């Protein structure tokens, strides 16, 4: 007998052995006990979590003669029927590989054969694995039988890809969704295996494997196999790290630290380390994203699943200086690079150059802090600025007159409310390039209210929620426009709507009723329309 991998040797043989799927096994066991078992099941869920195993257990439980006497709704695994099944020589349980036998003829054969009574047991059980691969006509041919099979037949369909199963099939079966196995369940289970096999195991190593398995018990067992054969009959953290090619938390923590601190000089060494390991950069980016996402959770005081305490502490340390916003930005950057890497011919170059850039981003954060400080210092002079805010910046309608007499020339670095107001014509011009409709309403009715170096309050002079909402929808464009003109990206906040009497310099407007205006501007911003003077438009005729 050749060596069997753990995943096969430890295939669960009783419902109680199936890890992390109590919601399925309990339901099935109760159904068996009460004799209310359905005639068709669909087991779905990601790879390696017990779909096929549960199907086989169910098949044995149904036919096991000792089941009723035991009362536990478990197959005895000792009687002749169970043993035959375990050894795969049972006539009444037919396991079909739907991925190899996909055609309508294969299903017709099943349909014909299922009419015959079982040979030995009570029931005839068809396990149709990878059922998502059946052809369309095969599925359709199956429908009638699946709905009303002979009384002695149970169908168990199993698939990882339930999307591909037609709705007509889904509605005829009892569906069970298997859940990814949580590391909390996986790690003790691996511990149990090690104990049985007589391998001394380090707790942390088991956790590492459990996490790396990403919810699949079979993956976990495969990894354990690998670690054990590497370390020669024991499971150590060291061996786990070396064999799995895992990106241990440290590698991710190091990346995070490098991106925060000013130690850009250590970046090349880090990148070299990655290259020597032969890291899969796409995978690394994925890991970084989930690492940062979890870090955000931790920062918000939310529970993080599947990370051990030691690791969480380490994460907190690594990301101590990062704000939630920074993390979101990093995730976004990583996500975009990951997208690029899909078609890249030189992933390593792309990753390294981008990483270098991210590592120099931290200076942005420091500049931001400076801005913050500048913002609070101008905050002291805010009241006078606020009083000026009433005068809408749209006074200066043409970009030809950017200089407003009331504002002193601002320093190049510090952008203040005055600078922004002064540059408003330029900003709207930049906005026009991005979104004409937004620019049109911006010129007419948006007022820069306050700016603290970071947060820019903009309010809308037009009454109604529509106007404010449509303004908010255009904030992304406005931010980009401000970015183009002033080189900063303020956080835009909508101020309270300030319905204003129409300004004297706009006597032509009142013709439109205010409610129509709301609708109008909303339409414009939603559909990107351009305002055309009806008189002018008519002229050509």
């Amino acid at each position: 007998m050749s060596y069997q991998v753990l995943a096969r040797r430890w295939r669960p043989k009783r419902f109680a052995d199936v890890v992390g799927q109590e919601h399925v096994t309990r339901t099935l066991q109760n159904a068996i006990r009460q004799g209310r078992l359905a005639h068709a099941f669909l087991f779905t869920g990601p790879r390696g979590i017990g779909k096929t195993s549960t199907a086989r257990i169910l098949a044995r439980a149904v036919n096991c003669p000792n089941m009723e006497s035991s009362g536990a709704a478990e197959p005895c695994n000792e009687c002749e029927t169970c043993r035959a099944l375990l050894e795969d020589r049972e006539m009444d349980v037919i396991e079909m590989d739907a991925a190899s036998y996909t055609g309508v003829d294969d299903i017709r054969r099943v349909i014909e054969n299922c009419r015959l009574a079982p040979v030995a047991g009570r029931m005839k059980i068809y396990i149709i694995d990878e059922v998502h691969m059946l052809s369309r006509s095969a599925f359709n041919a199956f429908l009638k039988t699946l709905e009303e099979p002979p009384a002695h037949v149970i169908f168990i369909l199993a698939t990882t890809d339930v999307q591909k199963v037609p709705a007509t099939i889904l509605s005829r079966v009892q569906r069970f969704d298997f859940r990814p196995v949580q590391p909390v369940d996986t790690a003790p289970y691996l511990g149990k295996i090690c104990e049985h096999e007589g391998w001394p195991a380090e707790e942390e190593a088991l956790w590492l494997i459990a996490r790396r398995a990403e919810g699949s018990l079979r993956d976990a067992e495969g990894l354990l196999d690998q670690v054990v054969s590497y370390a020669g009959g024991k499971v150590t953290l060291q061996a786990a790290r070396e064999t799995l090619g895992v990106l241990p938390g440290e590698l991710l923590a190091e990346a995070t630290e490098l991106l925060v601190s000013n130690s850009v000089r250590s970046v090349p060494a880090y990148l070299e380390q990655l290259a020597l390991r032969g890291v899969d950069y796409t995978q690394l980016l994925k890991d970084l994203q989930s690492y940062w996402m979890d870090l955000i959770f931790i920062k918000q005081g939310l529970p993080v699943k599947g990370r051990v305490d030691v690791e969480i502490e380490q994460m907190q340390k690594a990301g101590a200086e990062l704000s939630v916003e920074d993390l979101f930005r990093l995730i976004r950057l990583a996500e975009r690079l990951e997208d690029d890497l899909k078609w890249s011919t030189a992933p390593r170059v792309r990753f390294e150059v981008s990483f270098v850039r991210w590592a120099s981003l931290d200076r942005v954060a420091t500049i931001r802090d400076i801005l913050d400080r500048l913002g609070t210092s101008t905050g002291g002079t805010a009241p006078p600025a606020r009083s000026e805010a009433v005068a809408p910046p749209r006074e200066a309608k043409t970009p030809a007159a950017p200089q407003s007499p009331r504002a002193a020339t601002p320093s190049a670095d510090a952008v203040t409310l005055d600078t922004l107001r002064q540059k408003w014509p330029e900003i709207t011009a930049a906005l026009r390039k991005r979104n004409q409709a937004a620019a049109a309403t911006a010129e007419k009715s948006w007022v820069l209210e306050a700016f603290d170096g970071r947060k820019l309050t903009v309010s809308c002079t037009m009454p109604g929620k529509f106007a404010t909402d449509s303004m908010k929808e255009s904030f992304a464009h406005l931010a980009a426009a401000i970015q183009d003109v002033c080189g900063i990206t303020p956080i835009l906040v909508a101020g309270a709507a300030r319905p204003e009497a129409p300004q004297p310099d706009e006597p032509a407007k009142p013709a439109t009723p205010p409610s129509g205006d709301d609708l109008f501007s909303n339409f414009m911003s939603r559909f990107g329309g351009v305002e055309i003077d009806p008189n002018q438009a008519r002229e050509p005729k």
Partner: protein
Amino acid sequence: MSTSFHSRVVGQREARARLSDAVRSGRVAHAYLFSGPRGVGKTALALEFAALLLCEREGAEPCGECVNCPASLALRHPDLHLIYPLPSKKAGSTEDDEREFAAVIATQNAALAKDPYTFLRPAKAKDVRISLVRGLIHHASMKPYQARRKVLIVLQADAMNTQAQNALLKALEEPPSNAYFLLTTENEGGLLQTIRSRCQRVRLAPLSSEEVADALVKSGVAGPQAELAAAMSGGSLSHARELSRDNLEDLQRRVIAFLRAAAVCDPVELRKVTATLLDSDQMPEQTALEFIGLLLRDVALSRIARNAARHPVTFRGFEDRIDAILLAYPEADFDAAARAVDVSADYLARGYTRDFVMFALAIRLHEALGPRTKSSTKQTRLDHA
């Protein structure tokens, strides 16, 4: 210990040790997935492992002398089945076609047996035919003829389409006893999770430049050329071999001229330089792009690592040029530049005109490298992803 066997696997000592340990301790899993970048020795290692599994003596490496070894190393063993991407079957295939097909396989196998590092997909080979996968599963169900085991290999397994991958699932999970599946892939993401989950994974890291250069010199490449190719290869022996076919030093000069013209972005000069750059019997533009990418990487890394203990450049002896670029373009956005190079490579692969692609690249590089007037805009730009 063995006399007639010489391993053709370059480097990868750890992975080899792991596999021979598995054989020695009798803990061979029924399915292995060899993954790693191109040209690091996945096929070479898989074929050698196959020979080891079939070898009578079960030592640390195939003995090369028993009844099985010579046949399995030549890929002619009855218990060794090997499939890979092949041109798809025509609808009304005649006997001639089939014969031609068999001939393709024969040449392919011979080439592989001779040198596992230069596996080339046959022309028009898009995927691993499902009929071949079914055949492989069928072979797996038979008893071994001669050796104690059967080995079934799928090279470039990610080239199996969804049906083929699915068809393999059951066999991969619970193969008949004594059947062993070996899969190789450059792109793990191209395999179903269900496939990956059923295999023991053997990840191969890039080779060191020394290992690559060594192997190249052994195969007769001149020293400096070998070193340059090794440095550029990123640890891929196959790639280094391809690179070493171009005259790299000459190409390097032409690339530098191109970059200089791109920085100025003078159309006339650019046309001339592009013409010289592309003037070669080989197809050097992908190599040229690679060169530009690596150079940009060197410069980007040097900018931040100026005073670091180690200067992590790909191209040794280029430090002066790198410093010159850094001085000339203090504001350069290397990330954008690297992206431009990458995009160009993609365009070339899709068959855009070479001149057009290189011209567009020159303009993009000019934009990315060109000094900017506003220093503050650039830094906060990063913010707005």
